[in-house]
């Protein structure tokens, strides 16, 4: 019973329930082939969510990740003629620089990132339209091999892309937990004022967290676009909300200082299992919305029950009164 109170376990349980429900209603859902496909299609979301979760743990939220991913996708397709590695580097390096700049500005101005990145969220999207001349860019047919290589099935249920996602999650998770920069990110996220007074540097972890969110968003955008064989300037608009949702399902707090990469992975998988199951059922788009909304509200419910809340107080007051 007490085990059930463990938040991580609650989340694993939810994943299992959602998976079982889907497996029961969709033919072939429980196959290794499908596990491969789900992991593969989680890869982009997982990498973006990893970066965003680092950001959220620092008590910030980088709204611009979707726009950055779109730009990176376009750049990667433009540079695909020079090979996979060059294409990715060309997409990721500018994004990291942008992330550093953005993090530095936010740290120095001590401005809310929600406020600051609302502007970059819009501006970088504009940049995507400008660099692509408002057109869809596609891989040359001769380069489509890159796409096939990225999604190649290996080790039963994995692909290079999904393995990379897992690698990214593990690495960020380890760095967050066992390194000074990682602990600094947690520190400034949980208690900004206190950590400042405690002498924790403020600029470095903020810069790091924004460089991570932008860099990983760019990596994800570049790889996803290469995998899909094309990039459009309007793409990845929904990835921000999906990644935040996944991180929240995974137990990362919007108020910072809380969460783990294992949680993020569980959150990503839960969301992906749910969405792809509904998609395969032929459910309309709004059904996916409905389900996402319900899951989010369910987690709110769990958090309210787990924690102390004014409502619990009110209920207690009235029950005491009723008894008298």
């Amino acid at each position: 019973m007490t085990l059930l109170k463990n938040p991580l376990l609650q989340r694993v349980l939810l994943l299992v329930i959602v998976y079982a429900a889907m497996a029961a209603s969709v033919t072939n859902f429980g196959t290794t082939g499908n596990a491969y496909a789900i992991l593969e299609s989680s890869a982009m979301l997982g990498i973006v969510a990893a970066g965003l979760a680092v950001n959220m743990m620092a008590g910030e939220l980088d709204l611009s990740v979707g726009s950055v991913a779109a730009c990176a996708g376009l750049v990667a397709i433009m540079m695909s003629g020079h090979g996979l590695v060059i294409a990715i580097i060309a997409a990721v390096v500018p994004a990291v620089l942008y992330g550093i700049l953005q993090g530095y500005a936010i740290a120095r101005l001590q401005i809310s990132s929600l406020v600051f990145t609302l502007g970059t969220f819009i501006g970088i999207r504009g940049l995507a339209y400008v660099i692509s001349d408002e057109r869809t860019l596609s891989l040359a047919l001769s380069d489509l091999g890159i796409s096939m290589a990225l999604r190649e099935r290996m080790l039963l249920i994995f692909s290079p892309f999904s393995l990379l996602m897992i690698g990214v999650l593990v690495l960020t998770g380890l760095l967050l937990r066992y390194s000074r920069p990682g602990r600094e990110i947690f520190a400034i996220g949980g208690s900004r004022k206190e950590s400042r007074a405690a002498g924790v540097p403020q600029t470095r972890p903020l810069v790091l967290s924004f460089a991570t969110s932008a860099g990983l968003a760019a990596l994800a955008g570049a790889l996803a676009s290469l995998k899909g064989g094309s990039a459009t300037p309007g793409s990845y608009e929904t990835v921000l909300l999906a990644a935040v949702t996944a991180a929240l399902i995974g137990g990362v707090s919007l108020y910072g200082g809380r969460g783990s990469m294992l949680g993020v992975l569980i959150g990503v998988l839960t969301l992906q299992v749910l969405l792809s199951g509904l998609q395969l059922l032929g459910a309309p788009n709004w059904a996916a919305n409905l389900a996402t909304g319900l899951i989010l509200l369910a987690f709110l419910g769990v958090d309210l029950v787990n924690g102390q809340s004014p409502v619990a107080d009110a209920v207690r007051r009235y029950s005491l009164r009723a008894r008298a």
Partner: protein
Amino acid sequence: MAKADMMNMTGQGPGDVVLEMKGISKSFGAVKALRGVDFELRKGEVMALLGENGAGKSTLVKVLAGLHAPDSGETRIDGKPFSLGSARLSHAASIAVAEQELSVIGALSAAENIFLGGVPFRGPWTRRRLAEKARPYLEAVGLHHLDPSTRVETLAVAERQLIEIARLLATDARILILDEPTAALNDSDIERVKAMVVRLARAGHSIIYVTHRLGEVFEIADRITTLRSGQSSPPVNVSDMTLEKVIKKMIGRPLEEMFPHRASSLGAIALEMQGVTTPALPLPQNLQVRKGEILGIAGQIGSGSEALLRAIAGADIVEGGSIEVHGRAFPRAHSLPEAMKRGVAYCSSDRKLDGIFAELPVSTNIISPSMRRVSPGGLVNRRRIRALTAEVSSQMAIDGSRAEYKVGALSGGNQQKVALGKWLGIAPRVLLVSEPTRGVDVGARAEIYGHLRRLAEEGMAIIFASSDIDEVQGLADRVVTMYRGRQVRVVDPTRVTSHELVRDITHPEEEAA
């Protein structure tokens, strides 16, 4: 034990000046927090930094820590010019600060808290390695039993304060600054902190010690620097000083009376509670207070003294028992607004958390519990706001010309007067005050005691909870001592010694023995 004597015996010379500041000024907008402060610190000494609320002590500390850049002035460390203004540079110069506001990070473990902020800790931050390295520091501050991997947010305030000091120890800095480290501590913890400070000084660290508990100064400090309105006076040796002289230096005049006279006559019973229990107070509590009376509840943090007030105020849920104000019974499990409606006002001990709106003007703070009164029919009435602000300001001696200032920009004493005074708007019959003068300087303290007494004389019943024995003994007409959720005794403060009171709230068993 006066440490000054010890120092004199070791023959520390005046030549070892490690820190020298000259003409340091710092303004915040129109506020001149520091105006040409001179300061000096020697190797191995404890320098007490004293002054009223708002005198500039914390500002000076923050300037040293590199958290505020000074507007002018020069600083030398070991005789070499040093440029202030960057926390990193100060850190590199081996200056470490435990600030007045708690600065531990709740989401991290005790051990991680110790090693954040630049203390060397190489390699992976694993639980085991952290615990190993952190344990000596935790033991040094008396947290022997604490698991170093405990999340700090689960700890009590005093434990957090001690962790903060443990972190200071870990820095191994030459210049250690402690800004009111004992404000929120129990007596036994205070003893431990004081002993540690002495030990550190003996080991050659130089310590700047900021406090409003003037008694401590005579126990551990070697010299005193006082600040007044942002200006410093030259340091003096503790051995040359008396308490009266120190106070005079701080507030510019001798403090005639700290405490007002006692109640001359008491009225009818204002509040009576019987068998009250709350989640925090499982043992049934009885209490009675009369019109015009000031009842003091003495107890350490966590003794239940504050919980008792919270129960009356409706801030905690009353599960059993009954409460009556002027003969009218409270509803079961009453809420805070219901208590307010019946004439109970509660001023909590944590001003910043739920006592003031730091970012809003004084006037808005003052009207906040009286919204109905100043907005008849749901519309705000400027005239009424002004009138109420003026009324409260004059009653509490809050500077009327600062009515539109942010409360956060006022001194601690003035903030406390606002937090207390805002309740006058609802004309309470019973005023509950928790820690009425925490972090408030001697001058303002006397002022607040005077206000409380006057309110009692005007017919209010006042209950205050405090961990400061002098305050309880000096102010209260009657004292209830509390220990671990139970009332030990009800006494007449004029008939007991402070020693007895301290025993009651720390180890009442001896009395029985």
